[in-house]
């Protein structure tokens, strides 16, 4: 499914230009890929590998290290309930249990309509709002069970479309600044051939 669109290939190239070494753009490009498809499809992994002159195994191996990068489909809304210490002692597991019941899926699962994927996660640095959760990394908390139900309804009904873009869209602000001028160094590639007389 779906390699990067021409527009996103251009975004990828712009990202590569930001760094002294191309591979540094890998994770930013994977975010773009996830923005396009919601998750990292095998085709997109292969495509990103091509763009960066890497092996697909390297792209896959790198992506798999990071929790935010999914190599399997997830719902439109990724609901990440924090269960780390501050939230736990403020009722996070109770909130999680409620979320499981309300959405009808266990952590890691996706609702049948493809709307929600539920996960329990480590601290999301929103401990002042414990118990808290993030939907596509937009933060909500503290939450009661009723708050949770309302949040799910709002998401379902599109009332939060402004605040919460579909999964994969991380940063909606694009860099407008000129490209950096620092010297590239390290893995400098030699240019191609010299066709004397042709």
């Amino acid at each position: 499914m779906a390699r990067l669109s021409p527009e996103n290939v251009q975004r990828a190239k712009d990202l590569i230009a930001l760094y002294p070494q191309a591979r540094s753009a890998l994770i930013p490009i994977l975010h773009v890929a996830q923005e396009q498809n919601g998750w990292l499809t095998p085709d997109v992994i292969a495509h990103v590998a091509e763009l960066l002159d890497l092996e697909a195994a390297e792209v896959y191996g790198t992506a798999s290290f990071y929790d935010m990068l999914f190599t399997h489909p997830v719902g439109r809304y990724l609901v990440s309930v924090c269960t780390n210490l501050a939230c736990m002692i403020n009722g996070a597991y109770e909130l999680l249990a409620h979320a499981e019941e309300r959405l009808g899926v266990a952590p890691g699962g996706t609702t049948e309509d493809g709307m929600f994927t539920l996960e329990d996660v480590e601290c999301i640095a929103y401990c002042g709002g414990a118990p808290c959760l993030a939907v596509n990394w937009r933060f909500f908390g503290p939450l009661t069970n009723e708050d949770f139900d309302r949040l799910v309804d709002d998401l379902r009904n599109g009332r939060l479309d402004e605040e919460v873009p579909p999964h994969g869209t991380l940063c909606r602000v694009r860099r407008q600044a000129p490209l950096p001028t620092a010297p590239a160094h390290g893995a400098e590639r030699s240019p191609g051939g010299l066709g004397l007389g042709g």
Partner: protein
Amino acid sequence: MPDIVIDGKKVEAKDGEMIIAAAERAGIYIPRFCWHPRMKPVGMCRMCLVEVKGPRGFALQPSCYVPVAPDQEIVTTSDTVKKAQDGVLEFLLINHPLDCPVCDRGGECPLQDQTFGFGPGESRFVEEKRHWAKPIPINPLIALDRERCIQCARCTRFQEEVAGDPMIDFVGRGDHTEVNIFADKPLASNFSANIVQLCPVGALTATPYRFKARPWDLDVVESTCTACAVGCRIAVQSSSNRLVRHLGVDSDPVNHGWLCDKGRFYYEAVDSPARLTNPLVRKGDEFVEVSWAEGLRAAADGLRAAGASVGVLGGARLPNEDAYAWSKFARTVLGTDNVDCQMGDGLPAEAVLGLPRATIDEACSAPATLLLGPDLKEELPVLFLRLRTAALDGDTKLIELTPRPTAMSEHAVVSLVYRPGEAATVARALVEKSDQDSRLARAAEALRGESETGEGVVIVLGRPSVAESADGIVQAAAVLARAFPGAKFLTALRRGNVHGALDMGMAPGILPGRVSLDEGGAWFTDGWGAVPAQRGLDTLGMLQAADQNHLQALVLLGADPINDFPDRALARRALAAVNFTLAVDCFRNDSSRHADVILPVAAFAERSGTTTNLEGRVSRLSQKVTAPGTARPDWMIAAELALLLGGDLGFDTLDSIAAEIERLAPSHAGLTPRLTTGDGAVVPVAARGKTSSNGQTGEQIEVNATFAQGETLMPENDPDQGETPLDRPPSASDPAEGGRPPLLRFTPPPSSRTPPPVDAYSLRLVSGRRLYDHGVLVSHSPALAQMVSEPVLRANPYDLDQVGIKPGQRARVKSPRGSLLLAVHPDPAMPRGTACLDVNLPGEGPAELIDATAPVTEIRLESVGGAG
């Protein structure tokens, strides 16, 4: 050289080495899993923790990662160290399946050994272990069992750091980390099975070896791989008289322990049911098995009838002693100088033998190394690894002169792409100092960086493509040799012992020991009784002569000109035309189908001898198993045919041949049997002496260095025990002494064939060999045969566009010689005006298109539509 103190003992360390290595040389073995002497340390497994004294007292440090420093104090035996190491071992075992009884590694597993040696008896881990589906194939040769993996990163590091094919990587994080490939994309690397040998546990196993044998049932000898001319040192293992495994042996000057997958698995061919077991004689359209007496008689009769009107083709796969025997047989018994071990796909013997030769180490440490030859990754794989590592480590600068991009291009500081036929033109532009293109200027600067004369520079010289004549390459070499008198050459010819066969005189006008017929004729007339007066024909000449009925008989020594000679039509006509053909071979092939007599010979690991690699390094081949049926060594056949034809080669043992070579072949003067043990010695030995390991040692494999039973070369020769009784003191240390003729020096021939002007509508063809083609070794090794890919023609998309060929289409490819229908692949890396079609034996390929007498091969493409 810093002195360090390990366990109270003063140890002399080498600058920059890791504590673990210094300790090992001092006889203190620190346990380890991830550390490997030939790869960069990662310090991941933590098994090698020792206490190192720092500013704040002793602290646990990974001895594989901390370099030695003056007066460093290290403790490897304290309770703290012991507890840390035991702890690591226990951690490694808690999720390990402990399925040793069904594991291929059982019996030779460091994890098992450590556990036995130091580990806790009973497990304190009572929970469920980690589970993975197992085993899964990661390519046709390797199976992966992730449950056994201990995450040492040896496999991933090898593929990335050494091979440059990072198609296996860690996946996941923490204790869910696995090594794996991506989706269905196999680990497509010419070097993949090194990771099986590197894996310290049984996580990676070789599919061809799986369950074939248990380590304790294995017999082993050390030998030299003959799959190509690099001559990697190997341990050959057998079980019940069958070869079951090759392991790379760490030879410092040669292979650093690595092997290519072909070298690792071609032993399967030795065991092939297709092997010839008894002599065959043609009766009408059929071959019938006959006794050796009858077979030899038939061969002798055929040769007698032909007289001196005979040619001997092949020999590049024979051990040195056998090549010498046939060389002598041709000259003294048949009376012909028509001998050629190359199939028109190499370089003239004068260039190979006459240019000053470099070693691999010299190429890897030269101020600059210029590559003018084939894609090394395909043709001389482990040389590719050595040079790649050297380039990445900054030990040398690579400059490439090539008709097409190769696997090395990305590591070259400059890659100069020439149009087929025009290598010499670019070489001239490179050495002339005026008006240089910036890339030429950079290349020239690299070559002249340290001295105007190119002192220390190494030129790796081979045949970049069989679709252009060797002439242009030799001209280019001449230009470079003249401009850089300080440069040396490493010849990059492919076949296993082609360099040894050339040394043994298996080329027209060349006598054993790198002397010309002109200059050495008298010496060998003395030694042999007679030599032909006239220089003979090379393979092209012989085939042309046969085609024109000027040659009565051909002898094929493990040769298959129909498949190996670049011009297939000529080879076919020649074999059809001769009256009598004798084939001496392990297998039948397309050429021996035309033979009158076929004599079966012993293959690799079925006989002893020596072989010579591309440096001129002579090392041992060892017998491990017995030959099938009545197959016997090539030299015996030459000796017996000589007797039947009224001659006498004058030797009846391998040792007597070796002694005669040492005595008569000037380049081999002083090459005593002792010198050929271990890493071997580069000839002429006077110039170099025995190359001793210059220090770095690799991972040891236990090989009892005995040299095979039965028909042997210098039995039970312990390298450290000095001269064996068979050893005579060298007749002379300087080849030129004792009346020996001088060694050949290269004089560039006049350029005979100039390429035609460029034709705007045609493309010039480039054809090399790939590691896996349908050649003899590969097609008779089931594991390797499956690796062969379909032939495709690659060209720049622009060129394809010009003739309206769309991606995925097939095209009609035409040359003045013939035409083929081929899948075509657009490749933006290809230079415009050039197309690449690699040799793909024995199927249709460039041999249909090439005219061996033309300087280049011009082709035209026509779209035929439809999907490819």
